[in-house]
């Protein structure tokens, strides 16, 4: 994409600012901004206090810099922390709001951009910039006692639950970006599944960054009460811009006794252009607490977008016999960078964790798996199995694996396996000889490489993810 084209798209977009008129907070990070957010959301005072507490804490925290992908210093005073369409009651329907490259991507994916049609039978919470614009299938879920709404709504209507669990997995003083999020988070989803209830449909949130110069700070909280089950999926896209946009989300999961949460992500934020200009900084804190005995949390992520992806969806295995799983595909092409992995903290007895990570690097991209497996001294008979596979395409990309392993219990075992392979010219030739063109061949081989992870996704999204995998690597070979 030439700068000229970029400019055209930008001009084109600005032409529509009247259509999506925004309400914005004052520019920059300040108490004034936080009060503005809390006020516009009509939050109770305890919520504002909580935010301000986080803001005060933030003042003494330093932005971490140990990650592999470096980025230019972010000027936090130059960002908007809240931006919402004036008429947030209706979902953005106008296709012109979405930039052509993403439109084309969806066309290629064969997904009609009509949310209702696309996600039939799946309850969706749509977050547009800083606000949730619609939540579907609410009534049906309410009948079962399931709460699925925006976090803003939950703060008002279900404040007992929010008060009890918000920040209980990611404390507000956790680290720089998590604390920043706690101070300025704008919207996100809230899910509560009552005891012994199996959520009858997939719950899904669709995140979209639209406004420029705006950070997205969403907050998601999912609570699975005793003996319940829920499968939740998030999808993300952003317009193409030549500026880097910050997305710093916090996601907290709580699974009580015998409960199971399956959390899947298909992340397709704008990755920047071929020269590494623009794209989303995806700095996300995701953490789940297996608080009850026999509970289970399973993370599946397909990370194809963003200029920089920096996240470690983690499981704290507190309950005895609890299980944590992490399945990941991270694809980096052109100048994209990823530093991602997981943390599995074994605290309870007989806890089990499994990590399957597939990193794919193409172009000049850099892909890092970083993971911690820690077995605390009381976590007897705990087990972890980790498998990290990297696939390289071309000679200019990189793949790295850094596993941190701490075992403080002699009855527990930790296994780690890692492989690095280059996409094989002979395999491509074999596929070509069978009539597949280069892109079909790459798609077939890469999807084969990722199969164990793709299998974990809910059916409807597995197909989408497979196509996304192929599209993200287009033009990377030959």
């Amino acid at each position, binding site marked *: 994409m030439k700068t000229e084209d970029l400019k055209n798209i930008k001009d084109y977009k600005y032409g529509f600012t009247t259509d999506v008129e925004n309400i914005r907070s004052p520019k920059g990070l300040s108490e004034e901004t936080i009060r503005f957010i809390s006020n516009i959301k009509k939050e109770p005072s305890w919520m504002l206090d909580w935010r301000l507490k986080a803001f005060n804490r933030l003042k003494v925290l330093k932005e971490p810099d140990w990650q592999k992908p470096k980025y230019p210093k972010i000027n936090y005073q130059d960002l908007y922390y809240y931006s919402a369409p004036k008429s947030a009651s209706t979902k953005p329907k106008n296709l012109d709001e979405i930039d052509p490259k993403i439109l084309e991507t969806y066309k290629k994916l064969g997904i009609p951009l009509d949310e209702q049609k696309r996600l039939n039978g799946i309850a969706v919470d749509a977050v547009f910039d800083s606000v949730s614009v619609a939540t579907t299938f609410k009534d049906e879920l309410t009948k079962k006692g399931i709460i699925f709404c925006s976090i803003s709504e939950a703060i008002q209507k279900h404040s007992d639950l929010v008060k009890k669990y918000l920040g209980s997995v990611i404390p507000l003083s956790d680290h720089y970006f998590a604390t920043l999020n706690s101070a300025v988070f704008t919207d996100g989803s809230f899910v509560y599944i009552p005891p012994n209830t199996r959520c009858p449909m997939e719950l899904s949130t669709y995140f979209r960054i639209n406004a420029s110069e705006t950070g997205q700070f969403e907050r998601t909280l999912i609570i699975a009460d005793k003996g319940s089950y829920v499968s939740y999926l998030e999808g993300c896209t952003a317009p193409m811009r030549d500026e880097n946009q910050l997305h710093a989300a916090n996601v907290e999961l709580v699974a009580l006794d015998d409960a199971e949460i399956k959390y899947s992500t298909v992340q397709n934020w704008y990755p920047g252009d071929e020269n590494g200009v623009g794209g989303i900084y995806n700095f996300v804190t995701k953490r789940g607490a297996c608080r009850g005995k026999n509970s289970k949390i399973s993370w599946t992520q397909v990370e194809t977008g963003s200029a920089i992806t920096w996240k470690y969806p983690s499981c704290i295995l507190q309950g005895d016999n609890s299980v944590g799983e992490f399945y990941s595909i991270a694809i980096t092409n052109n100048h994209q960078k990823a530093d991602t992995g997981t943390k599995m903290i074994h605290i309870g007895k007989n806890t089990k964790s499994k990590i399957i990570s597939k990193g794919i690097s193409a172009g000049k991209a850099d892909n890092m798996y970083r993971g911690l497996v820690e077995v605390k001294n009381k976590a007897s008979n705990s087990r972890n199995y980790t498998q990290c596979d990297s696939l390289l395409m071309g000679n200019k990309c990189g793949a790295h694996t850094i596993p941190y392993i701490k075992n403080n219990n002699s009855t527990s075992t930790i296994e780690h396996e890692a492989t690095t392979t280059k996409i094989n010219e002979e395999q491509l030739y074999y596929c070509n000889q069978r*009539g597949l063109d280069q892109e*079909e061949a790459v798609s077939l081989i890469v999807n084969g490489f990722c199969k164990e992870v793709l299998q974990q996704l809910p059916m409807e999204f597995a197909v989408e993810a497979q196509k996304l995998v192929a599209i993200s690597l287009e033009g990377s070979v030959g």
Partner: protein
Amino acid sequence: MLNIKNLEAKVDNKHILNGLNLDIKPGEVHAIMGPNGSGKSTLANILSGKNGYEIKGEIKYDGQNLSELSTEERAQKGIFLAFQYPLEIPGVNTNVFLRTSLNSVRKARGEKELDTLNFLKLVKEKSSELGINEKFLSRQLNVGFSGGEKKKNEILQMKILQPKLAILDETDSGLDIDALRIVADGVNSYKNKDNAFLIITHYQRLLDYIKPNFIHVLSKGKIVKTGNAELGVELEKTGYANFI
């Protein structure tokens, strides 16, 4: 169908083929024999469109200049290579691979893609002809296959893709007697007046089952002797010494 004139090929400045001539007509079976390093596999690779060769001379396939066609276009137009060492593709089911491949070829030929049901019917029929167990088809492509299974799988692909020109690169090596017979039967039952075979082999034993119309002896990148089926028997007795 295939006309090769004065074909020369180099890899890293090393001459491998030095003026090779060959004509193959529909309905014919040609065998190429020759000592190791004589250029047999190079010929198969060049015909199927493998990269990395510097080529001079002319190859016409159905009147079209072969050098104008990409590897996949050649496959789509009916050139099939049974690999000497079939590649493993982890995570990809044999069935999925076969279907993707068949549908790519069908699409290029302007035919409709086969749906799952009809594809499974086809694959079931063709695999039972080769004595291939259905379970085998849900395994990852060539991963953990025995040498014989890999070769049978190549012949299965050939029968499904229905090529016009099938090139068999040492398909017989590594096969036991029963597998050899099954592979040969597979070739014989596919052979007809409209298609042609180019069979690369070291051993007469395959040619006991598949009767060639011509046997060519390849040496130092050239065909040095062409004969009928009798030539193979003679070579088996005397070796290549008389011809090179």
